[in-house]
């Protein structure tokens, strides 16, 4: 994409873009990958409680190397810190929060997302007998909102936003918004609706990088 007149967002810029849209007071679970980076860029001006599957509500950014607490990790097995008002609980209580619909938002990475809101993010092949599902399926079906954070295409340029997922699903019909390095896209009534794009990107170019028809809000630039 280097020949184009636009600059895709870096992973950290994507995280910052997502952080802007998280409401004050929300309870949020961050999946592995780009979503995890959101923890480090949340503004102090908002009270946002981050939930981790392994039994933490209210963790904070990564610690300084000299202040690592070996007993305090997030679901990605990374060392984290604790914010005021945090609490610990066991795995059954943790997933009671998830499955019971108590999280306002989870942000997941994805291999593919369909215009129906299907997400595939746990297994790259129907023939993979040992895929690692972790907590993704519970998060996808249990959270009030599911957002996806992903590069717009694979490294090879294959679209990740598609009409129908080809990889095994994590859950059908759950995704309501997608943040990519090129655009922010709502999923509504089985359609991809582009809210914003990076400066310089054209509608045609974005459509070419996408595996399903795009609709554009008037406010989407370009």
């Amino acid at each position, binding site marked *: 994409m280097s020949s184009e007149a636009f600059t895709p967002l870096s992973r950290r810029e994507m995280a910052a873009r997502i952080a802007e849209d998280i409401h004050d007071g929300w309870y949020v679970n961050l999946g592995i990958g780009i979503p995890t980076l959101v923890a480090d860029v949340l503004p102090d001006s908002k009270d946002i409680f981050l939930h981790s599957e392994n039994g933490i509500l209210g963790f904070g950014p990564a610690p300084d190397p000299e202040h690592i607490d070996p007993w305090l990790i997030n679901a990605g097995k990374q060392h984290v810190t604790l914010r005021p008002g945090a609490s610990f609980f066991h*795995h059954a209580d943790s997933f009671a929060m998830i499955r019971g619909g108590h999280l306002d938002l989870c942000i997941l990475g994805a291999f593919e997302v369909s215009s129906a809101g299907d997400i595939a993010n746990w297994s790259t092949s129907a023939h993979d007998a*040992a895929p690692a599902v972790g907590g993704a399926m519970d998060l996808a079906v249990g959270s009030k909102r599911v957002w996806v954070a992903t590069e717009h295409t694979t490294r090879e340029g294959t679209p990740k936003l598609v009409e129908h997922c080809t990889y095994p699903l994590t859950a059908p019909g759950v995704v309501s918004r997608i943040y990519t390095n090129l655009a922010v896209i709502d999923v509504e009534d089985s359609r991809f609706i582009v809210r914003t794009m990076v400066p310089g990107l054209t509608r045609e170019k974005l459509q070419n990088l996408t595996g399903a028809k795009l609709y554009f809000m008037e406010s989407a630039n370009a």
Partner: protein
Amino acid sequence: MINKQVRNVAEALDGIRDGSVVMVGGFGSVGQPDAIIEGLIEQGARDLTIIANNAGAGRAGLARLLDAGRVRRIICSYPRSAGSVVFESLFQAGKLELEIVPQGTLAERIRAAGAGIPAFYTPTTVGTVLANGKEQREFNGRVHVLEEALPADVALVQAWSADRFGNCIYRESGRNFNAIMATAARLTVVQACHIAEAGTLDPEAIVTPGLFVQRIVHVPDTSFSENTETSADKGKQAA
């Protein structure tokens, strides 16, 4: 008088039989009862079924138990991660059976076993390949799958502090699967970093009341003496 503390790891694991179903607590490297897992290798039980979130990483602990050929079957949510080399080679060689269970369903099945609930319905996996072959049923207009309780013969648990009655508290994210596995086995063996004087644990803060625990062995915590680099390396083993 109740005194569940035993003198050493060997005593803690005495009598575990071939063919046992063994739960292993912890999530990643936090709360893993490494000393009693290693003790189980010495103890010698074979043909085990392991219930754990992960399938081991590196060459120590659970990975070493697998490597020693003691495990026939593993039930977990996240078998394959950066360091799971032992699991992967055994699995690919067809030497290990695997049951993949979503993490929340795994936790709830364990909790159900401890709570006398033989089965429950959950929305998780509906519309995915993991629902294949599962009984489905609609409640309130939403399809759910039936999941059965997952009990064990033995639970290996790491606690931060325990008293002679078997009461346990955990440390930070070390509570994870430990607190629920402690309820779900016929024999719960706790590796405790500290032994508390009877009556000194706060009744409001005890997470595992003593009636769930049969044996406690004191294994001091070494995580804080590790240097930062080692901790960071462990952190790289993905979820």
